[in-house]
């Protein structure tokens, strides 16, 4: 399943409000200031609602949320755990 396209769409629309910021898969969105602490919370809520994964607080860490790639990898991994 494609998690990337809806996630990028969500960040562009709901976080950046259509602001023109180039987004690529590997970019560190936290250090670049694209996501702040409330932005992260909204992304977590989006992932849970849209993709049906549960994101415990202790998983909301740098390795899972630093980039779009890290977030989609995390969702893929959570989905696999859910099925097993």
């Amino acid at each position, binding site marked *: 399943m494609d998690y990337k396209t809806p996630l990028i769409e969500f960040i562009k629309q709901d976080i950046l409000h259509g602001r*023109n910021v180039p987004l690529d898969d590997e970019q*560190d969105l*936290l250090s670049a*200031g694209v*996501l*702040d602490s*409330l932005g992260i919370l909204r992304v977590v809520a989006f992932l849970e609602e849209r993709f049906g994964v549960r994101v415990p*607080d202790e998983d909301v*860490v740098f390795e899972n949320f630093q980039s779009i790639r890290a977030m989609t990898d995390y969702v893929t991994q959570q989905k696999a755990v859910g099925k097993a």
Partner: protein
Amino acid sequence: MRYLLSHVVDEAARTQPTHDAVRFSGLSLSYAELARRSNGLARILVDRGVRRGDRVGIFMNKSLDSAVAIHGIMKAGGAYVPLDPFAPPARVAFVIRDCGIRHLVTSDLKLDQSQLLAEGLDRMTLVGASPRDGHDAVGWVEVEASASDSAPAIELTEQDLAYILYTSGSTGTPKGIMHTHRSGLSFAEWAAATYGLTPSDRVSNHAPLHFDLSTFDFFATAVAGATTVVVPEALTKLPADLARLMAKERLTVWYSVPFALMQMLERGSLAKLDLSTLRWLLFAGEVFPVKHLRELMAALPHVRFSNLYGPTETNVCTFYNLPPTLPPGDEPISIGRPCENVESLIVDEDGRPVAEGEAGELLIRGGVVMRGYWGRPDLNEKGFFRRPVFGRHYEDVFYRTGDLVERMPDGNLTYLGRKDRQVKTRGYRVELDEVEAVILSLVSIEEAAAFVVPDGQGSNLIEAAVTVKAGFQLTPEAVMNHASARLPHYAVPATIRVMEVFPRTSTGKIDRRELQAR
């Protein structure tokens, strides 16, 4: 003798050269290394033309080099000006022009650097960057190679300028708050003594460099010869990582805005961590909602808590050490009493001291107070209160905080609100007038109103509404784009409504309360 902020690093380098001064992401810099590198940076800056009183910008993500930059600039006789690395390039360029920065300490990792330099700035000297676009450049490698046992010999006094912190200004552009070595050191020495800092302390370094809480992190820590642990910017947005860092680095003192602490309380899984080394938890910048504070105190029963108060213009000027158990009820906690070497005065609208127990504006005098606003005689005229003394030939000068307070019978002050339209959002200070002025600079806007709504996390969010001039079409996205290209991210309204007409009060003013409630 210690009278300059950089003296505290030199002193620690003599008494405990190998002790960690700064830690960042598993790297560290000893006091001896920090002193030698900042001497090297100072020599490079002086060679490239920095003179006493010159403003030197710092434009980079936080790291070990932040400490080198701060002390190197001051040792060169300059004043450091931290530029928000996440602010729109146009805003950063405004600050550079406003205080005449010609030297910038930076790093190639800073993504927006090229965008900033494209803003048509005059020729600059960039320290820590590769050469580009006709700007002069020196690399960090050269700074390390220039490390030296001594700083350039420059005559400075405690009254020389040490740093300028820019904050929201009500007329639509930021204003620069000028601090001297005296005002910075006065605060740092008070803080180190009051919280009993010693070399074995490991102190959090959480606030952005352009935010006044950072002066505690860098200077109070160095006064004590303790270690400051720089939190990478990315982790400040991730409460679980933040709490883990607190445990892993065995921090003993934490200082931040309440928002960061509330986030950690809610999402940091504090109960699973060993935070036994923590002894002081200090907060400032905003009111800490008592409900959350009570929970945090219950979660960390071995820790002492202190509320620090002070506009950036005064560093910190009052403090309140919390009792082990808070009294019942939701009464906001006190901002306490003036710090040592600080005089407070509460005056009415006409500048007359109020009667005991009456509300009024808090005025502050003492070593911690700023010198003034950079290049703004109008604000300096309004911002200070002058009390004639000694046969009226002399004056005691107080800073007008604009904060309304009341002195309780026990001598502690209660914060009541603002005289003007300044607000706090997650610890950041924002003038709603500035937000409106920026939106109004869009030609198609007829009227703009900015206001705050609760964010559900114990702080405020800024929202705005606009009406459009006849004959123009406008989307909320267009207004948002305009605002976010000019305001720092925390001041950009979370939502912008385009309305046909504004609700009005009976006197015809925009009814912001009604907008807030809708």
